[in-house]
């Protein structure tokens, strides 16, 4: 189950990164970045 949830978190992280790099408005890019931080920390099993 843990592996499955880590996979889901990694997929959402990839989509968030894709959004960050395709978004035209820098404020929405910043929003994507803030979403990515906890996802990245969880995927790396840090927090």
């Amino acid at each position, binding site marked *: *189950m*843990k592996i499955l*949830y880590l996979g889901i978190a990694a997929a959402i992280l990839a989509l968030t*990164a894709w959004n*960050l*790099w*395709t*978004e*035209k408005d*820098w404020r929405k*890019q*910043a929003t994507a*970045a803030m979403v*990515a*931080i906890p996802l*990245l*920390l*969880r995927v*790396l*099993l*840090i*927090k």
Partner: protein
Amino acid sequence: MQKNHISAAIISILTLAACAVAGASFLEHRKVEPIVRGPGVTEVVKLSAWYAGLAGTPADTDVYVFRGQNPGGSMLVIGGTHPNEPSSFLSAVLLIENASAESGTLYVIPRANASGFTHNDPQEGAPLAYSFTLPDGSKRTFRYGSRATNPVHQWPDTDVYVHAASGQTLSGNETRNLNRGYPGRTDGTLTEKACYGITEMIRAEKIDLSIDLHEASPEYPVINAIVAHERAMPIASQVVLGLEFSDITIGLEPSPKNLRGLTHRELGDATDTLAVLMETANPSQGRLRSRTDEALVLTGKDPYYVKAQKLGRLYVPFDEKGHPIEERVGRHLTAIGEFAFAMSGEYPDRPIELSGVPGYDDLGAKGLGAFLRTAD
């Protein structure tokens, strides 16, 4: 390069920098601070010695053993069930660094939920750590942990937590609460395995008395109290009277039979031990608290709780003096001494005699740092 790619690159670099800073802080939380072995510790054994399934996992933890020169009964003190309740952990530390067993055997687990010490609770604003200055001027620092097992070690939580032995249902976040998982099981979660290890230890060592140390919010009804399994009620009653003679007021609550998974219920039902749990008053974990910082953890002074007391909202006296850590640890340690005394009186063939345990008045007069040993 497109304009939005320039901003994306800058924001990505800032994001990675934020992750690096936050990640370093979180990883620092996993370092285990030393506990200095005092003169009474005869062995330090891993909990996995009683349940091998814990070996190599973040739930494995140290058990400090004090074997007295004279035979007698046995007592287990469980500290750090909830690592956001400092008097529980610190009482265990002070026992390890100061106490000796003259008769019988004392077992002390300072970090019962070892995983819970490796992180903190989000959105609580709790300090990362708190420190004490020792008489030689050195400092000892301990982390302020989380109530529950680290989700990095046990994830995800179920929506509803089902207590395996009874079928009782609780909120999903209780899945990682050590004090909802007893007696534990080998095919359960990491938290349930830790519970199983402690239960197995009690069974194997035939421990006569088990004391689980806790703290509670001042607005929580069960506070400054002993919660006792029905078999432990007679001895707990003696302890209440003994504490009253020391001017320490403490309540006595029967362990509810329909509240499952807690030490005072499950350890008493699943083993022959006399199971009790004790609570002190910790404003730093309460919902009505003001600024949550190291000072609040250590002094227990909080103007919001003074106001709440005046409004009749609390279950414990609360004035400008607060509830300092010395008072909270002193209550636990004095009660442990009283339990040993009561055991020896009630079961003369299984005496437990402890020495070197810091006293309530000494802690208040000298401060807790005076009873910590210098760490190398």
